[in-house]
């Protein structure tokens, strides 16, 4: 089946986003993780910009610019500052090792492909595969949140999950700018709240390691 170059490049960019999500799962140092997250946001911005060009929808350029400015530049720098000020331990402890995590990631990508390609069997085949990639990015973001002990890496997982949602929305041809702005705004609020909480937790308990914090929960004697 021959496609035009436009669709091929869109696929490549979506596939690269999945690849960078895997790269995030592989990292075990915090600063490297922030750099890879910046790369994730950059690839997302490129993908959205390309979709703007392919679908001839200029408002998507603004979405791409927002993604590039906030997620690739502002948020990584802010997180970097938080890490320095909190003095967080810079090695990411994982619940499961790299090998099983990657295998789980593979399984999630396979699951996303099966679900998307079966559920949307009458839609345009190219949009279906883009949606499958977007679902994979969302699932990989969730996997990252579930298998990391460090709170900052959980924030990064949450952000990359939202990147997957943006990819899905732009791929589906016609996400109004209003929705995008409201989603981005809510994410920003959530991020600020999380940052404030991290500071409070750090002040009270001297650590943001979730395993250690677990012992302070009310139900245990």
């Amino acid at each position, binding site marked *: *089946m021959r496609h035009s170059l436009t669709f091929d490049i869109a*696929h490549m960019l979506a596939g690269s986003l999945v690849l960078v999500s*895997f790269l995030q799962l592989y990292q075990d140092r915090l600063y490297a993780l922030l750099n890879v997250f910046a790369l994730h946001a950059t690839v997302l911005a490129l993908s959205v910009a390309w979709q703007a060009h392919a679908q001839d929808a200029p408002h998507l350029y603004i979405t791409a610019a927002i993604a590039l400015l906030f997620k690739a530049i502002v948020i990584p720098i802010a997180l970097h500052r938080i890490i320095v000020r909190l003095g967080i331990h810079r090695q990411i402890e994982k619940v499961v090792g*790299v*090998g099983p995590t990657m295998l789980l990631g*593979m399984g999630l990508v396979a699951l996303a*492909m099966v679900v998307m*390609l079966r559920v949307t069997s009458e839609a345009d085949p190219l949009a279906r*595969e883009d949606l499958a990639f977007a679902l994979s990015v969302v699932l990989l973001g969730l996997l990252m949140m579930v298998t990391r002990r460090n709170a900052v890496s959980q924030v990064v997982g949450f952000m990359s999950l939202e990147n997957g949602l943006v990819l899905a929305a732009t791929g589906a041809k016609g996400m109004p700018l209003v929705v995008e702005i409201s989603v981005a705004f809510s994410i920003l609020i959530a991020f600020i709240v999380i940052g404030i909480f991290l500071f409070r937790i750090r002040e009270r308990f001297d650590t943001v390691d979730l395993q250690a914090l677990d012992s302070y929960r009310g139900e245990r004697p």
Partner: protein
Amino acid sequence: MAVIADFLVQGAQMLIVLLTAPMLTGLVRKIKARMLRRAGPPVIQPYRDLVRLMRKEVVLADTASWLFRVIPYFIFAATWVASSLVPTFRTGLLFSWSADLIAIIALLGSARFALALAGLDVGTSFGGIGSSREVMIASLAEPAMIMIVFTLALVAGSTQLSTMAGFMESSAVGLRVSLGLALIALVMVAIAENARIPVDNPATHLELTMVHEAMVLEYSGRHLALIELSASLKLLLYLSLIACVFAPWGLAGPSAGLGALAVGALAYLGKLATGGFLLALFETSIAKMRVFRVPEFLGAALMLGLLATLLLFVSRSL
């Protein structure tokens, strides 16, 4: 007449790979040295090393057997046959249908099998370290390579390298996600198989960092010359493979005239130089990994290859 011309072309290919391999190694070393602000050895130094080794006497350990003496010839034969089957300046070589990509990888696998046996032959602990680490690295690198072969074969519809190269050069291929993943995985596997940083240091003499060097520690003289030449040939093979599959521009077709052949040869030399430069750049900018991080690195390559194959199984357009 056509058959004789084909014979000549195949013979030329075998000679070209043999003569260019040390030059490639020399080029990579020179560029690495320059990047580290050293003058570095001249590019033709590997040729001088080979001649010097040939003239020297072989010092054989007391405990070495006949296998130890035969293995360098076997490794050289297997690697040379494999590298003459990868199209360099022209596709459709005379005997290219006798061994496809899977057979080429298996030939390299037999060379590695023999080298691992040579490491164990003399009965020292260094050889044991090299052999055991080498088979651990191979246990993940070769499945990753087979997955890459599956991806390429599913895209091109055949496991023959000439057919693959021809398909990649035509306009039917387009940009594909699976090919991108396969390229990244192939680069990672090539680094591991050729014992380059970050997997293994080709210039080390400390046993904690040795894999390939430890297996050939006891070799000297003409045997060592053959093994070094085989290692250079293997690097050339992997670069030619990446070039003919992912950068096939300039490759002459099966029935090309002298002009097209000359263009193909020049394009090939250009690709080798570029590949060597990029390899030297990569090696200088990254540190060598701890031995037990290599399985994670190669596991990632295996996952990428598996993902690429999976995408092709699920959807023919990906």
